């Protein structure tokens, strides 16, 4: 295998050298970067904007989860295998920076190459991951999780509807679904029970939430695992309300369903994802260019229109009409909603175990 690799590399080198050496031919060879991020942030319609503007081809590897992305980084060889990665900011802060100075797994960004990173909405400027004056990760998009529900079956104006409790109330037993995810489902249940800071719960509180979930388990039709599955459940009427994502709402509305999301009074789960470049990325220059493009207004506007995810660039928010800002939710930062940042719990191991106990009960 080593020999084959050597042959491949030497052939490539010869080829490139030959092309570069031909006089009169200035050949801007398009480079490819290896990236790991949720495919949804670079849909086919939006891809040309980034690839065209930077002349870089982006090969995004099969995406598994934000947690897995961080795990890929910390695995042996992780810092040199990928050029560009995106994951939930609160999940990666610790691993990215490492325990001490000098143990960072990400490359300190050359801020001159990413001018757009300075033009973020004020809320997200604090979210930039920095250490000792150097920038390591820049938030590029954000969103919120809430309850997606069918307005024809569940009244919008009710206090119950505008709360996580709607997923746990016996009134809608058998017509609701949670996500099969320890982190998000336990957080939602904790908020429904009234815990203000779910990710800082101690063992006793976690135990209470577990008991609550076990008691309410019979109310759930199922726990969805995939995007398409969740959307399908709403559109076929299998359930009337579920823990859901912004993109799901967008898809269902486009399909003509009278579906919307609620704004839970007990706390809207609010997250953002940041991009970074692993420490030993082989194509750092190109990765910088891509990062810059994804902080830009053109990309941001296109992404919001296509998927309804929101971006951190201040220019995008400013470029939208007030009606659009409300429609997509850029104004939730001003609406005085109870925003609960999605964070890594103190003891994820216990959360996973707790969820296992809920399902096994």
């Amino acid at each position: 295998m080593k020999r084959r690799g050597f042959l491949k590399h030497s052939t490539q080198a010869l080829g490139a050298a030959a092309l570069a050496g031909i006089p009169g031919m200035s050949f801007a060879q398009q480079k490819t970067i290896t990236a790991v991020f949720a495919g949804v942030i670079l849909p086919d319609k939006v891809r040309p904007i980034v690839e065209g503007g930077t002349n870089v081809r982006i090969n995004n590897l099969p995406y598994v989860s934000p947690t897995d992305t961080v795990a890929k980084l910390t695995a042996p060889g992780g810092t040199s295998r990928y050029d560009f990665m995106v994951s939930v900011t609160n999940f990666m802060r610790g691993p990215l920076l490492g325990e001490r100075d000098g143990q960072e797994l990400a490359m300190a960004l050359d801020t001159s190459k990413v001018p757009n990173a300075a033009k973020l909405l004020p809320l997200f400027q604090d979210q930039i991951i920095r250490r000792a004056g150097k920038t390591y990760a820049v938030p590029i998009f954000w969103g919120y999780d809430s309850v997606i529900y069918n307005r024809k079956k569940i009244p919008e104006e009710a206090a119950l509807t505008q709360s996580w409790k709607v997923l746990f109330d016996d009134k809608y037993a058998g017509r609701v679904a949670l996500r099969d995810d320890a982190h998000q489902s336990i957080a939602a249940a904790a908020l429904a029970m009234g815990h203000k800071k779910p990710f800082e719960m101690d063992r006793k509180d976690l135990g209470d939430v577990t008991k609550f979930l076990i008691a309410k388990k019979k109310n759930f039709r199922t726990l969805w695992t995939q995007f398409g599955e969740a959307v399908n459940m709403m559109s076929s009427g299998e359930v009337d309300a579920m823990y859901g994502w912004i993109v799901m709402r967008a898809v269902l509305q486009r399909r003509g369903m009278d579906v919307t999301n609620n704004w839970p009074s007990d706390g809207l789960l609010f997250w953002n994802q940041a991009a970074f470049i692993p420490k030993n990325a082989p194509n750092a220059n190109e990765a910088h260019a891509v990062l810059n493009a994804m902080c830009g207004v053109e990309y941001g506007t296109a992404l919001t229109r296509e998927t309804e995810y929101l971006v951190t660039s201040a220019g995008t928010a400013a470029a939208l009409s007030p009606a659009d800002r409300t429609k997509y939710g850029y104004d939730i930062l001003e609406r005085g909603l109870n925003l609960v940042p999605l964070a890594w719990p103190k003891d994820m191991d216990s959360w996973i175990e707790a969820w296992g106990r809920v399902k096994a009960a």
Partner: protein
Amino acid sequence: MSDAAVKPIGKPWLLASPAVLWLLVFGLAPLVFMVAMSFWKSTIFGTRPDFQLGNYARQLTEPLYGTLLLKSLRIAAVSTLIALVVSYPIAYFLTRLRGLWKSVFIIGLFMPFWTSYVVRTFVWLPILGRAGAINATLLWLGVIDQPIDWLIYNEGTIYLGLVYVYTLFMVLPIYLSLDRIDPRLIEAAVDLGARPWSVLWRILLPLSWPGVLSGCIMVFLLGVGAYVTPRLLGGPSGIMYGNMIADQFLNNNNWAFGAALGSTLALVVVILLLVTGRWIGIRQVFTGGRF
């Protein structure tokens, strides 16, 4: 005429060495690595080779893991039995066919397995769901006036999903085994007045035992590690041991604990195979009763 008089062709270690080499490098090494990793410590900063027994201590103190292990073994065993009962007649059926029909049906058995399992497991949702095909048909026929809830999202659906996906693994080795049986044996038995049940129990089953064993081992091992099927079809209680393992890697970065769970599973399965091996004849079939 004794077995020992004629040696089969070829030198055993020469024949087996390519496979042995492959297995040592790519099979055993990863297993050893998994066991080694199970003693390491995983934090949010990554996995470090700091030797500790915590991952195993946790499995012993928290009853969840033992419960799930037993549940997985139970579901896998039941699925294997169901698959065996469902598949044996089909394997026999295939041996009764001749010529073109035989090939057609065998290919026909394979074809569903060339659609990805992603598709093959998800397809049950629009069939069994409240708004699915079965409910729609029954409603239209007037047999029911409310959709049936219990077609999906329970343990029964898990069995359906597993057996459906793994039938090929059971039919194929049994068919290959049965196909070699001399039909004159059966004719002779019938002439002597044997009832069908006797033919099955005393001729077919013993002679096709290697195939039955192979099929059962495959389906059982696959069932014990299942995690997509229970999660998708099993509803809020659809959890098996494999899900806990998957969670460690996909929702958490506790690789060391995941490796420990995997090592426990591997150990239990190996012990199971060793213990039942002698009883159901794995040793005799594969190793001739010696070594």
